[in-house]
């Protein structure tokens, strides 16, 4: 692998409203440090893509944003969301995760009915009204472009869905919580091209209402879908810019090599 100067970076600052602002974040798994001093802001109601080679720390950084690294890794630094540092010990993580939802690489529907996949967490968060629950099921499934395919079998097991459908159900499950921010860790990488394009369509429609942060290995996907792109290398943030700039005029050699496939 080529050696790049990891301390050089090009991170553009945009005068926009940010949903999340990370300041000097370091993440370690025990002795092994995986994220080095990353400062990065995610503009509100925009799609930001995180790209980078395998092991560059994209998932690690993403999971720090909704505290999924608690008990797994040590996260230092400030991560500001609505003027509070959510990396503080005193933060109620259960409340936080209602605002910052997450969709994982492998579809992980619960072994429950399609309806209950969506209502289970809502009920546990105190929503008991049947009408409200039904409403949330319908709206979230429609937003996730799954409604037409499942509206006649809401009470059947979610495990009978195809991979692509299951992933859209997981998206519906996340947005039924009415989050502000949606974190997606390679949401389409385990799916076939048709399911992938359905997921992309879904996300494209969602970006009007949510701030979306998506990790992807797929360059076309990143350039098609995102407004901003962050490139990670070996735990360092190397470049952050508008997606159009990153893919046409990258400033850093590492970024250029990575997107043109000349990497390592």
């Amino acid at each position, binding site marked *: 692998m080529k050696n790049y100067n990891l301390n050089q970076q090009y991170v553009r600052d945009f005068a926009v409203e940010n949903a999340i602002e990370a300041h000097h974040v370091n993440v370690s798994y025990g002795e092994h440090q995986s994220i080095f001093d990353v400062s990065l802001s995610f503009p509100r109601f925009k799609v930001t893509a995180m790209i980078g080679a395998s092991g560059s720390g994209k998932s690690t950084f993403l999971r720090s944003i909704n505290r999924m690294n608690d008990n797994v890794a040590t996260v230092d630094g400030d991560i500001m969301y609505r003027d509070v540092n959510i990396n503080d010990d005193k933060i109620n993580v*259960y409340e936080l*995760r209602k605002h910052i939802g997450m969709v994982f690489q492998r579809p992980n529907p*619960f072994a429950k009915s399609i309806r209950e996949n969506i209502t289970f967490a809502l009920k546990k968060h105190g929503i008991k009204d049947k009408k409200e629950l039904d409403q949330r099921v319908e709206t979230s499934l429609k937003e996730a472009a799954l409604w037409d395919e499942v509206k006649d079998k809401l009470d059947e097991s979610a*495990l009978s869905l195809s991979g692509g459908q299951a992933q859209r159900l997981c998206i519906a499950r996340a947005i039924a919580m009415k989050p502000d921010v949606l974190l997606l860790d390679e949401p389409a990488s385990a799916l076939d091209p048709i399911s992938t394009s359905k997921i992309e369509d879904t996300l494209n429609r969602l970006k009007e209402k949510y701030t979306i942060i998506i990790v992807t290995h797929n360059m076309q996907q990143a350039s098609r879908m995102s407004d901003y792109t962050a490139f990670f290398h070996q735990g360092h943030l190397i470049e952050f810019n508008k997606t159009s700039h990153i893919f046409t005029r990258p400033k850093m050699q590492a970024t250029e090599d990575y997107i043109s496939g000349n990497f390592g």
Partner: protein
Amino acid sequence: MNPKVVNKIATGVIYGLVILVVAILAALIGYILVTGVPHISWHFLTSPAQSFLAGGGIRDQLFNSIYLLVLTLIISFPIALGAGIYLAEYAPKNWFTEIIKTTIEVLSSLPSVVVGLFCYLLFVVQMRMGFSILSGAIALTFFNLPLLTRNIETSLESVSSLQREAGLSLGLSQWKTITGIILPAAVPGIITGIILSAGRVFGEAAALIYTAGQSAPFVDYTNWNIFSDTSFLNPLRPAETLAVHIWKVNSEGITPDANAISSGSSAVLIIVILLFNIFAHWIGNRLYKKMTSSK
């Protein structure tokens, strides 16, 4: 050798072994059923045992076996569930947890006579519980706990960690994720564990001789007051189980039909275990479907 031939030989050997196991099992069960079933009659199932005369039945022993199973499960299941959840979901991965796990394993391999005598001294004598179903249930809990705990632990662990992440990412606490998502998905495995431990309870004799006792005093099946001495539900009465009865009839039975009674009892025991298997699977399936709405 050519891979196809090797494959054929390997498959052949495996099939052979499977057939051998099935054949042994079928022969055993077949023998017990063939020699025992002719002695089973309504009278046999519904009359009390006789000490000296022919024509005794196994009514009380049969009931005692089932009641003992129920009591044992009532005592051991909640403990095993708690311990299993702790070990699978909360216990840190360190030497202390390893010691706990090893201890549990050792507990399950203790000889039943030793556990029986220990429970005799501690519960029957020291704590004055006397020969009783309760003493027997506690003794059996010693065997049951490791089995059930291990089983619940592995059933929980076999549920994908993706499900845990999904629960947490929706703002659920670890406890709600475990009880609401992980546990329902683990139900089929847990049912299997209950069935296995039930087989052990039905079949155990050595540990019960000193704890539940070898006598089946008169009980009244219409007396629902569990504190009454003659009530069939009284957990403090001595209670010979079917397995103990078989052992006793075989070793010191002096009734003229001792042989027939022992064969008949063995057949009943096997049938009860089979029925319990079917019943538990049925309950488990319904429970699983209800909790996961799978069809």
